[in-house]
């Protein structure tokens, strides 16, 4: 038997699961050798620039390309009329709707794509854009979704007039997209009718944008001789893009190669298929030259993939002790001009019905109506699983409001309603099967860490002095890892994910994945999983993603699905290899496979010290000495279809002070405890949590895609769209518990989005808590100084003394 010290040393050498090893990605990034889409430099590349609508809603009377085409260096100007013969002027969306690639007779949102200028370089292309003359007849713009279903509301989608269906069920109005209902309406209404206490609150998750630091873009290169299309693209889901491009272009998937190189952040912005991509591809096919399209930041904030815009009304029924008896939710969802939100096809409101949260709620009912407005399409999950941020926001605000009404402490009311550890697996009123959790333990740990009781005492004192101090609590449950193919698909493709591992003769390995990192360090994390499963050092395990010609088909990275789905595929693929290795080891040691024990990096013959074969030795043998009848080589592929989602959870507490003269909020303390099950690389997990909390801070305190009454954007540059600097960003305190997922091969759950999903309600609960003693129940996000001051001023708290 190996000594513990000796085996521990061998284990450490692997730098596998649980090790905070440094990232394998970093050396290229810190030396300026990353390879992002705009860095791709193919010979003879042309540049595409988009002509966009200044109007939110208008009819196009004419487009005159002559002046632009006359500009030296301009190769082509494409409009909807040029795409019509190819049937590419409209494209299908992930939500069963269609979206104009280039505006067809009318524009339905400001900055909508009207024409594309292809020129020698980005300078000439920009000049060309100014020379394209478009004559518009402005139409009244519909900006307020609450007016979308009015009798006299302007009709946005004339192409759908007369159609009572737009891909997601029955439409009740020309601007209506779908109605989605889930739960027991009658049962819920009954409980409300007889409830001791009820609370009702309207609240808004305003329209925001993921705003990754790298904008969207692509380089499309069509080889006329070979008939191959290669597309370098900023996509979180390259395989899906290839499928969509094939459907659109008619080219066989085998002739299309989609490559996601290094990506400068995604956060949901890079899931969709955008008109810019399509037009660059068409231009390349038509002109037979590589065509590059790169968004400006203003275009990015104005057109590609907004998030949220959920106008919610929540209601809770409870008894006098604050035990929740029922939840009722009505949502008006503003989807913009085209329904191109990125959700699993069968889920028009994503996974919003997880809105019963961490609480044992007997009965619930949710209704969501989606409507069109004259705003950009999108509706992506901004660093969250589909619509889960909205769901968690709703329940975490509502339980605070209930506590306020009953004058019960906001932590206490949570303990009274938590699903108890012994209730797992727990089936929710809205039909989700929570895999595992221990909510009370998490909240207790956080309360002790921050001295919750002491904070409440301090708040008492401050309130006497007229000072505003807020304590926010959020005890969220996330649902990630989409998803079981019986429930989830994208355009009919099940949401499995994949891993292919090849172990080389000398004991190094390459793994190829169907997911796509946008900064989450997959090259490191997956290598660590394989290291532990195969007993080979993570250092010599190469992980590749994003090239559809080499990687197995996968659905990509979003909704924190990489570890829950891709990570499970990796573990299972590695285990297939280990099973074969066991047979080879048995052959080499001339024993039966059952006589072998696996230990860290080798198989040992039970009870016979020294009789062992390391994985390195087995790898060599796999290419020259395998049992009779066994094929050579050491590799495996796994397509993993998860049996269920995973349900990470956490307990957060935020403490902030508000300046009653300016409305400024200063976050004094933010303590975040996350439970994502088994932790693969704690350093990377902590980094993900820092980032998620920072994006949560941005959303809660400042981010807003704002419009004026005519649909003009008011915050579409980094001057007005809030991205915090190091100075504003609070200092984060992190903590964890570990409650493994029972159905995941490693017990891992996924983590990157929890801090965003749980962070936003925690901040907004803190701001609202600062005013709750004054009877305020809801201050809407974003909590800018201006917005907070309005409440202060109405209450007269800013009076000079």
């Amino acid at each position, binding site marked *: 038997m190996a000594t513990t010290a000796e085996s521990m040393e061998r284990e450490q050498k692997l730098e596998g699961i649980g090790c905070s090893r440094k990232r394998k990605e970093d050396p290229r990034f810190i030396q300026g050798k990353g390879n992002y889409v705009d860095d791709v430099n193919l010979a003879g590349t042309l540049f595409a620039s988009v002509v966009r609508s200044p109007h939110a809603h208008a009819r196009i009377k004419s487009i005159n390309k002559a002046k632009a085409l006359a500009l030296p260096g301009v190769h082509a100007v494409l409009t909807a009329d040029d795409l019509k013969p190819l049937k590419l002027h409209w494209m299908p969306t992930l939500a069963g709707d269609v979206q104009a690639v280039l505006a067809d007779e009318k524009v339905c949102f400001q900055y909508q794509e009207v024409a594309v200028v292809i020129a020698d370089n*980005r*300078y000439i292309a*920009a*000049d060309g854009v*100014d020379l394209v003359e478009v004559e518009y007849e402005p139409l009244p713009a519909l900006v307020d979704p609450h007016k979308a279903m009015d009798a006299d509301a302007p009709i946005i989608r004339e192409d759908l007039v007369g159609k009572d269906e737009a891909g997601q069920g029955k439409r009740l109005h020309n601007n209506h997209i779908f109605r989605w209902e889930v739960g027991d309406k009658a049962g819920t209404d009954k409980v409300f009718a007889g409830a001791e206490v009820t609370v009702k609150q309207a609240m808004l998750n305003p329209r925001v944008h993921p705003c990754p630091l790298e904008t969207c873009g692509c380089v499309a290169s069509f080889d006329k001789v070979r008939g191959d299309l290669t597309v370098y693209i900023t996509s979180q889901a390259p395989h899906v893009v290839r499928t969509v491009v094939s459907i659109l272009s008619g080219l066989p998937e085998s002739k299309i190669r989609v490559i996601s190189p290094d990506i400068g952040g995604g956060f949901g912005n890079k899931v969709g298929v955008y008109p810019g991509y399509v037009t660059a591809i068409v231009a390349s096919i038509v002109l037979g030259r590589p065509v590059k399209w790169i968004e*400006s*930041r*203003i275009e990015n904030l104005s057109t590609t993939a907004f998030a949220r815009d959920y106008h919610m009304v929540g209601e809770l029924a409870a008894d006098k002790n604050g035990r929740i008896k029922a939840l009722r939710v009505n949502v008006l969802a503003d989807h913009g001009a085209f329904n191109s939100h990125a959700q699993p096809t069968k889920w028009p409101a994503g996974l919003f019905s997880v809105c019963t949260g961490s609480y044992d709620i007997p009965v619930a009912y949710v209704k969501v109506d989606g409507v069109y407005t004259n705003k950009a399409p999108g509706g992506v999950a901004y660093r969250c699983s589909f619509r889960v941020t909205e769901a968690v926001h709703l329940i975490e605000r509502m339980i605070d409001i209930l506590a306020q009404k009953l004058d019960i402490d906001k932590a206490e009311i949570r303990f009274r309603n938590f699903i108890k550890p012994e209730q797992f697996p727990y089936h929710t009123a809205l039909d989700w099967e929570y895999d595992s959790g221990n909510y009370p333990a998490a909240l207790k740990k956080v309360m002790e860490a921050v001295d919750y009781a002491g904070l409440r005492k301090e708040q008492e004192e401050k309130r006497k002095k007229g000072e505003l101090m807020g304590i926010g609590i959020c005890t969220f449950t996330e649902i990630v890892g989409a998803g079981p193919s019986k429930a989830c698909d994208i355009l009919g493709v099940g949401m499995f994910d994949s891993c292919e591992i090849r172990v080389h003769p000398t004991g190094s390995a390459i793994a190829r994945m169907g997911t796509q990192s946008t900064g989450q360090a997959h090259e490191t994390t997956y290598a660590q999983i394989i290291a532990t499963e195969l007993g080979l050092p993570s250092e010599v395990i190469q992980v590749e993603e994003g090239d559809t010609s080499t990687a197995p088909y996968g659905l990509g990275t979003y909704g924190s699905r990489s570890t829950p789905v891709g990570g499970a595929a990796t573990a299972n693929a590695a285990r297939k290899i280990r099973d074969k290795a066991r047979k080879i080891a048995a052959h080499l040691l001339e024993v039966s496979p059952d006589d072998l024990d696996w230990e860290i990096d080798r198989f040992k013959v039970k009870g016979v010290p020294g009789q062992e074969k390391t994985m390195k030795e087995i790898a060599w043998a796999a290419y020259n000495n395998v049992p009779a009848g066994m094929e050579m080589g050491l590799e495996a592929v796994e397509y993993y279809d998860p049996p269920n989602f995973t349900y990470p959870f956490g307990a957060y507490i935020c403490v902030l002070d508000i300046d009653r*003269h*300016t409305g*400024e909020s200063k976050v004094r303390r933010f303590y975040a405890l996350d439970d994502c099950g088994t932790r693969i690389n704690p350093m990377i997990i902590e980094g993900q949590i820092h980032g998620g909390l920072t994006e949560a801070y941005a959303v809660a305190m*400042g981010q807003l895609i*704002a419009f004026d009454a005519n649909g003009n954007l*008011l*915050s579409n540059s980094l*001057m*007005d769209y*809030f991205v*915090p*600097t190091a*100075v*504003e960003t609070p200092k984060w305190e992190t903590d964890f518990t570990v409650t493994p997922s029972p159905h995941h091969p490693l017990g891992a759950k996924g983590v990157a989005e929890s801090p965003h999903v749980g962070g936003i309600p925690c901040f907004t609960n803190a701001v609202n808590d600062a005013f709750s003693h004054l009877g305020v129940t809801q201050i809407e996000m974003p909590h*800018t*100084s*201006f917005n907070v*001051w*309005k409440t202060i*001023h109405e209450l007269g708290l*800013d009076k*000079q003394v």
Partner: protein
Amino acid sequence: MIPGTFDYHAPNSVDEAIKLLSSLGDEAKLLAGGHSLLPMMKMRFANPQHLIDLNRIDKLRGISEQGGSIHIGAMTTENELIASKLLQEKCPLLPEAARLISDPQVRNCGTIGGDIAHGDPGNDHPAVMLASEAVFVLQGPGGERMVAADGFFHGLYYTELAADEILTEIRIPIPPKGSGYAYSKLKRKTGDFATAATAVQLQLDGKTCKKITIALTNAAPTALRAKEAEALLTGKSLDEALIEQAAQKAMAICDPAEDMRGDRDYKIHMAGEMTRRAIRLALSRAGGN
């Protein structure tokens, strides 16, 4: 985000620059730090046919003391103002304000002259200049003329500077020893323009306020001098009640434009709050309380 085409000129002397300016006329624009002009050109709001880059005119840089006043070359950068020992000692209001402008990289390019001549009420130096009772040296084909900061700012992007003139130097009378000063600025985040900001320069005579100047940033189409507020405080021993009255007088002259920073009501109240804070801070720095 690509600027239109233009011709580029990089003169080595002010005379050369003025000659260019006169000969090229309306289609020429002066390039100082470029962080206001270049973004406008990238958005194609500004499309000058000629850019005259002042960055290669060394004479336009530098900070010196002459007689009772500080002379600052118009092309002196914000970071040079911040780093200047002379200013920190004799005229600390400037470095205090400069530190609150934009971010470190931009402050390496942004110049005091550009900030003033641009005529944007959101810029910070105009109010600081008003509070400092600065004098600007404008040079044109006909030679130099001196213009007081008070009276230089006419309207939105519209100043006393003629089309063929260049702002070459800023002259600031050195406040007497023991003067108080403060620049209080409220902004949404680091690097942002002011939601509201107030510059105060103050002298005490014992307990009484011998002299005070108060100026407001981004509260109207131009930076504003709050003269009534000044008059109210001059010759009195300052207390909270008086400071409050002064703030009210300052608020009364505000005419801000609504934007994402807030509506008029908020901005006017914030101008009042920044005025309170600046007066209090200046007072304590002057040894009052």
